[in-house]
């Protein structure tokens, strides 16, 4: 705990900027060169993002001027009549990602807490290694799994059960085809979990030991001490969830294979849908005509904006949750 207070305020000293001695002659100091080099590398990130934004906005210009804000509220996607609207894809992206996060959060957090707090270290390390292995599986493999393993199981087991028992909800109405929003949500949840688990585990492990020790010393049970740890790690865990959400929002290949690819908005999770990334992957190569191509690029722009909004919200959430406790939030 004491370490934190020591780092919280910058200590003025010989290394702090602003207090270095005047330059000797005209030669730039190695320090300055180093600083400039690193600053330009960091600046490159801004330049790349700015360039992406500029190029997408430029490509989307014909579509923006043709449809305006209606692009975001229209459900039409008709390449023949050249009428385009992004709402079904916006909806599909948000719903599939939210579903994925809802499924992955309990799984990911539970696993991470077990690995960090309860499992013997050797078992924890072994499982963590396997989890990281999961993260490196190409997304097309997840997609094939979704089509050939998950879809038949959904069609014959889960979806008929949902229709029979929860069919009174609009969420679970329709035919059990195995392909659709629910399949995409589960595949995404599996893909997002490794990120969630390994980040959450790292965050929990990085908490000072003294935190748990003091909780136990004050008479907390094991469960209560874990509660204290989670509370302390909350901003970091939130950050991990947002990184997972980011992956779900942008995931393309696996989702394209299992979501069903239609531009209809349906309340039912059993129905097919489409996401912004999947429609771009599907239609970009065969998009003929300037407006069609431009509408697809505008979808990319909307996806970019959505990612920015989600990340900004995440930052706000982290700030709201931490107040001034910036040190742990740094993990996000």
């Amino acid at each position, binding site marked *: 705990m004491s370490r934190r207070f020591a780092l919280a305020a910058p200590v003025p000293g010989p290394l702090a900027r602003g207090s270095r001695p005047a330059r000797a002659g005209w030669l730039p100091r190695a320090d300055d060169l180093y600083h400039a080099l690193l600053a330009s590398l960091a600046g490159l990130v801004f330049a790349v993002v700015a360039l992406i934004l500029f190029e997408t906005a430029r490509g989307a210009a014909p579509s923006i001027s043709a449809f305006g804000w209606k692009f975001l509220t229209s459900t039409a996607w008709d*390449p023949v009549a050249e009428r385009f609207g992004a709402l079904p894809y916006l909806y599909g992206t948000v719903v599939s990602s939210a579903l994925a996060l809802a499924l992955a959060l309990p799984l990911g957090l539970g696993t991470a807490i077990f690995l960090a707090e309860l499992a013997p270290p050797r078992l924890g390390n072994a499982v963590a290694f396997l989890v990281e292995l999961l993260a490196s599986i190409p997304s097309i493999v997840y997609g094939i799994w979704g089509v*050939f393993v998950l879809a038949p199981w959904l069609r014959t087991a889960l979806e008929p059960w949902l229709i029979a028992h929860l069919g009174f909800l609009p969420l679970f109405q329709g035919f059990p085809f195995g*392909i659709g929003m629910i399949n995409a949500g589960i595949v995404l949840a599996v893909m997002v979990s490794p990120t969630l688990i390994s980040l959450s585990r790292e965050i929990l492990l990085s908490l000072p030991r003294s935190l748990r020790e003091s909780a136990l010393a004050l008479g907390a049970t094991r469960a209560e001490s874990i509660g204290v740890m989670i509370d302390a790690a909350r901003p970091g865990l939130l950050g991990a969830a947002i990184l997972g959400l980011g992956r779900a929002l942008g995931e393309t290949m696996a989702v*394209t294979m299992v979501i069903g690819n239609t531009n209809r908005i349906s309340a039912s999770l059993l129905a*097919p849908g489409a996401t912004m990334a999947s429609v771009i992957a599907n239609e970009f*190569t*065969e998009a*003929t005509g300037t407006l069609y191509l431009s509408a697809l690029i505008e979808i990319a722009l909307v996806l970019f904006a959505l990612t920015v909004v989600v990340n900004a919200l995440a930052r706000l959430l982290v700030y709201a949750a931490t107040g001034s406790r910036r040190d742990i939030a740094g993990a996000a």
Partner: protein
Amino acid sequence: MKTYSIRLAAVAAACALPALLGPSPARAQNLTGAGATFPYPIYSKWFDVYHEKTGIQINYQSIGSGAGIQQVKAGTVDFGASDAALSNERLKEMPRRVLHFPTVGGAVALAYNLPGFNGTLKLTPELVTAIYMGTITTWNDKQIAAANAGATMPAAPILPIHRSDGSGTTNIFTTYLSLVNPQWKELVGANTSVSWPAGVGGKGNEGVAGLVRQTPGGIGYVELAYAKQNQLPVAQVRNKAGNFVQPSLASTTAAVDAAAAALAKDVRAPIANSIAPQAYPICGLTYLLVYQDQKDPARARALANFIDWAIHDGQALAEGLDYARLPESVVKVNEANLHKLTAGGKPLMAAE
């Protein structure tokens, strides 16, 4: 930006290949093309055989008809390939005059998955439209039963499956539906991708076929060659003459032959929904797109020689891959168009 990088890649490829191959026989010209995925099996076979024969390497990227047309427009390839002929308006958008060279014909088959149904599914044009419109939703519907008299249809829900990616296969299929159904033409239309009123989409022929295999009650359209190689059961479709016809090489060739006269006038004439009694109705031609006036005489000559080979000797290879060969009248039109090719204003094939 995109055009530039592709041009750069094309230049790099053109420069690197001869270097990699070492001294090539007779200073062979390497050609680049891009476009349709539908004829890719036959095209790659052609390029392979032609390379063995002449040493000319043809780099073809099956990036889709739409992208192929874009590349032709940008002038980054020697030829484009498209399953959809360019409309008059699209031709006007091109910087210079573009010629269409039909190469082969192909059929689109309706593959289905109906456990408990033995025999061959028969569909009328009205049924195909209604299934893809989503107005008929179960297999034991009265209208399906009427077309399949004597068979008992399962009570399973129908899942119509379409291509989620833009494709020439979709263009052939929706062109057919627009021809047979005015309502489809008005509400949906024909294109490489359309706004589907019902069903789910799979990516690529393999995606559609995978969904059909996976889903009892599923029906999806795929290239005939693809359906055959994967031994999917395919539906017979009633043609204009009133016969239920199995999609096959013979029935596709019958459709192409029946359109010979119209094609001689304009190679872009549709061949779907043919009046010939044995013709399978859902089919189309695929085209190479070439600028009439070429820039580089040597490359242009190599390209013209290749097309000349493809429309004559190459045709024999088509049938092995379930593509229909061109009728004699269309070959004649192609020959006439080859003679129209020029390089820098001078005729290319005048000597021949």
